[in-house]
């Protein structure tokens, strides 16, 4: 098969297993102390700045970044183990998730020295949170059609007008890395004329309007920019290079264990039920789900190992996200076929609650970070079909 889809197996990392044990011990203590309760899809819905600060204190944010920016110079395999443990426990990681996963790495790649020194240590400390400013009301999968515009004023600052949507937790975040048009769209080169701006969400002219998702939760927002003056030194990377930068950012966004573990707390609850009942049909379902999950882990670990080798495996990352997010939704159907439980957020049964949370979040799994149709298109390119 095509080499662009296949990555070498990940070597077992002893360092990763050591930090995994530390995280597990920390999480057990936090759960015992009641500092959080387990939920499904907590990297979207579990905003808890105090919890994020605790992770920062322990050195579990900005793990792979240089020490001079507050990072810890650890491997992607170690970071993988930490993120995977947090997700499996259903811990409240949403506040820092975007900053740690993609905004920080984006700043490391393209930021100025001043931007890095100013912001990265705060992200690593769990004190500075980011949102993704890509989609717009009229631009979803067709990201190149964005209309949010930034123009230079006489002082060399940027004046931004437009709106971004689906900005998770913008109401609780500090910055938005915002994709804007800095030159009119050119039909001959749709990817030209875009740039990324580092926008402080407390600037005058920014309005954050809540958008509620199916379970009533407020995570999404519309962020409206009305003549917002962004200092000229807050351009991220090169003017006109926005498309390229966004593509690189998406490779980070698409490669992690949150792309198959969003509903893991439901699987764990189901496993408890099966362990108690010994139901053969439940056991078989748990076995099948576990086999799928183990395969996804291998794929995701291979990507972490590739990142450690300095590669940016965008096509394998798209493939894992497609297969992994499909699994996240399938989990619900497979489990409900073999348990006699009615889903409800108010259920006295933890399995009923987990099913309800997973179900009401389900449409998002295969949309966020690039729809599975877009991802399959990328995989098709890897197969040499486009």
């Amino acid at each position: 098969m095509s080499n662009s889809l296949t990555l070498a197996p990940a070597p077992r990392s002893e360092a990763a297993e050591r930090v995994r044990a530390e995280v597990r011990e920390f999480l057990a203590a936090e759960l015992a102390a009641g500092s959080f309760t387990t939920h499904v899809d907590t990297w979207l819905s579990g905003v808890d700045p105090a919890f994020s600060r605790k992770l920062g204190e322990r050195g579990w944010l900005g793990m792979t970044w240089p020490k001079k920016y507050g990072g810890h110079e650890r491997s992607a395999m170690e970071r993988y183990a930490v993120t995977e443990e947090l997700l499996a426990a259903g811990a409240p990681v949403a506040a820092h998730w975007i900053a740690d996963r993609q905004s920080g790495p984006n700043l490391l790649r393209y930021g100025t020295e001043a931007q890095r020194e100013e912001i990265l240590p705060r992200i690593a400390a769990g004190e500075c949170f980011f949102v993704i400013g890509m989609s717009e009301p009229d631009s979803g999968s067709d990201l190149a059609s964005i209309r949010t515009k930034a123009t230079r004023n006489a002082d060399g600052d940027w004046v931004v007008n437009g709106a971004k949507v689906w900005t998770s937790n913008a109401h609780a975040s500090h910055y938005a890395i915002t994709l804007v048009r800095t030159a009119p769209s050119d039909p001959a080169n749709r990817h030209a004329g875009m740039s990324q701006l580092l926008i402080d969400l407390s600037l005058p002219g920014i309005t954050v309007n809540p958008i509620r998702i199916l379970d009533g939760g407020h995570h999404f927002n519309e962020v409206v920019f009305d003549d917002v003056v962004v200092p000229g030194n807050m351009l991220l990377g090169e003017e006109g290079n926005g498309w390229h930068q966004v593509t690189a950012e998406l490779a980070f966004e698409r490669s992690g264990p949150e792309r198959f573990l969003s509903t893991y707390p439901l699987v764990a609850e189901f496993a408890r039920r099966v362990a108690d009942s010994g139901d053969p049909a439940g056991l078989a379902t748990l076995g099948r789900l576990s086999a799928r999950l183990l395969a996804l882990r291998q794929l995701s670990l291979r990507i972490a190992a590739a990142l450690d080798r300095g590669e940016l495996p965008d096509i394998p990352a798209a493939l894992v996200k497609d297969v992994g997010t499909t699994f996240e939704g399938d989990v619900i159907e497979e489990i409900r076929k073999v348990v006699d439980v009615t889903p409800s957020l108010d259920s006295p049964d933890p399995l009923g609650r987990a099913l309800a949370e997973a179900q009401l979040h389900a449409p998002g799994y295969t949309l966020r970070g690039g729809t599975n149709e877009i991802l399959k298109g990328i995989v098709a390119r890897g197969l040499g079909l486009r």
Partner: protein
Amino acid sequence: MSTDQDLVVETVRDILAGFEPTVLTAEKPWDAGLWAALAGAGLTGVGLPEDDGGSGGELADAVAIVRTLAAGAAPVPVAEQLLVAGPALVEAGIALPPVEEPLTFALGDAVVAHASDDGDGPGRFTLTGTVTDVAWAGVARHLAVLATGPAGPVLALVDVAAVPASSAANLAGEPRGSFVLDDSAASGALLTSAQAERLRARFALARAVQLAAALERVLAWTVQYAGERQQFGRPLGKFQAIQMELAQMAGEVTAVTALTDAAVQAVEQGAVERGAVDVVLAVAAAKVRAGAAVEVVARLAHQVHGAIGFTQEYRLHHLTRRLWSWRDEAGSELHWARVLAGGLLADGPDGLWPALTRVV
């Protein structure tokens, strides 16, 4: 892959190129000529120690050979000999038959083995009972069978050249007949139940490796076909609907390959380093995952190929019919799914996650 392994694979490919895949029938249940060519090149002893009559080499070399032959739909008992029966006999201290003579393996849950001497070690047994679903029954000269004795599992080796096999075949026409054994003389050895479980896992690993290789090849064939077949003035592969199907197939195949590789590695590292139970669970997971991919990959491969793929004259069925069979052989998908779940929950109701992160 090492250079040696590349060389071995190259040799297998060269030999395979001289033999067309065949539609198997009761009259022609295997490819004796291909077997002779492989045996002549020493390839039917790879991974088995030279001291025991094998050709030497590692498990990984044997796996590479099995993968290559599976992708080529080669009708010869190499997976059974190199990955299951051969290593099991060597490990149990039972003398290996000449590697030029086809050897197979079967689970003989209904076969009772009685010691006919009083030795503690490998010795003589008599076997009674029916052994069903024997891969290559009527083709293999020797059968290694996992039987049951009064003191526990017994691995026994029977010369079945003179034993009549019932004619039965899997969906691909590969022989899967039965033998009725009645006080049949065998050499054999007692196994611990853990050894017996590992042997079952070895059998499942062989099928998982074959499944992975065949799935990869079916994807490659389908991508190739979609690039060549023109409809509405364009190759099929230019249609987005077809691209979505091929991408879905690629996702399945890539997942299977990654997990199968990990299971092979777990078996290579062995029970001491990885824990006996975890090796079995790694294989169980690979077998279940590979089996689960068959539904998607075979269905979409046929869908993309259209009617030509539904004919015996076109090559696709050589692999898709094997996929539909292999996924429930060496322990059904259901069996291994339950083994996997049971093993993952062995440490209690909260033990799933620690087990998942330990197994592979």
